[in-house]
């Protein structure tokens, strides 16, 4: 009985994978954002090799989930969008990593 409950809890790990981060493109964007303090849209586009539209679409989803903060600033009178991971986004990314690790830990080759 106890074993069944524990097993059930372990199986739930599979469903705890965050679908917002799990998309390959958003995972890529989150990984880049995880490693910087902040980055502007132009630089992020360059390093991720994504198109304007694609990057914009995925950033919007991440912002809606509260994982990303986007702030419009001006530099030399030109608009510039600064992007960074929110605390919630950092925690979600860590959690995502932990969940995946638990799922694949000890997986036979």
């Amino acid at each position: 009985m106890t074993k069944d409950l524990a097993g059930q809890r372990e199986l739930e790990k599979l469903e705890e994978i965050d679908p917002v981060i799990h998309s390959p493109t958003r995972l890529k964007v989150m990984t880049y954002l995880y490693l910087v303090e902040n980055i502007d849209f132009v630089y992020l586009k360059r390093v991720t090799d994504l198109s304007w539209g694609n990057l914009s679409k995925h950033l919007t989803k991440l912002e809606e989930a509260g994982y990303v903060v986007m702030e419009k600033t001006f530099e030399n009178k030109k608009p510039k969008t600064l992007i960074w991971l929110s605390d919630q986004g950092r925690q979600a990314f860590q959690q995502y990593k932990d969940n995946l690790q638990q799922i694949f830990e000890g997986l036979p080759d």
Partner: protein
Amino acid sequence: MSDNKILKSVDRKIFKTYFEDGLIDMFLAAFVLMFALGPFLSRPLGDFWASMIFLPFWGVVYLLLWVIRRRVVAPRIGSVKWGEMRKKKLRTGTIILFVINVIFLILGLVSFFAPIASGYAMSIRFSVMMLILFTAAGYMLDFNFLYVYGILAALAMPVGEWLYQTVGFSHHGFPVVFGTLSAIMFARGLYKFITFVKETPLQLEEPPIQGLNHD
């Protein structure tokens, strides 16, 4: 750990993208130029001032490259603030390179005031120093091209000495070998810069991001 490797690669890409413009090569070319032109100034100014005179020269080159970076490169490439992982690596790298430079400065001063070696012996000592400096910088900054520059810089002085002893080149061959090395660095930097400007058109304005207020 595989995820660690991926994170390191991503971090490396973020960092290296910032320096795709070739300006570092041009600055290094200015640094190496000191060894090519310095010997001509040694006689009128003395060894010490022949080196010191390059400090304002490097300052001017640095300022020029900084303006290019700000006016030409930054609007094309955007901006980034390094994360903790990169900051830590840069801090460690700076300390290590500083220690290496201090050691080399002491060795240089010892050689200056109490020269014990000449010719090939001096060349090899200098070669080892150059190799260590460039290799450490290449490793710390993740720039593979610095290893190649290190090898070329290490070869320069013995080759110069050989040219001096066999062909009779002036000033231990310094102007020729270091002039060539400086030209190689500058040419590579210029090529990279032109390629960067061509391949990275100026983004006049960011397209609106859905959901973000762009008023």
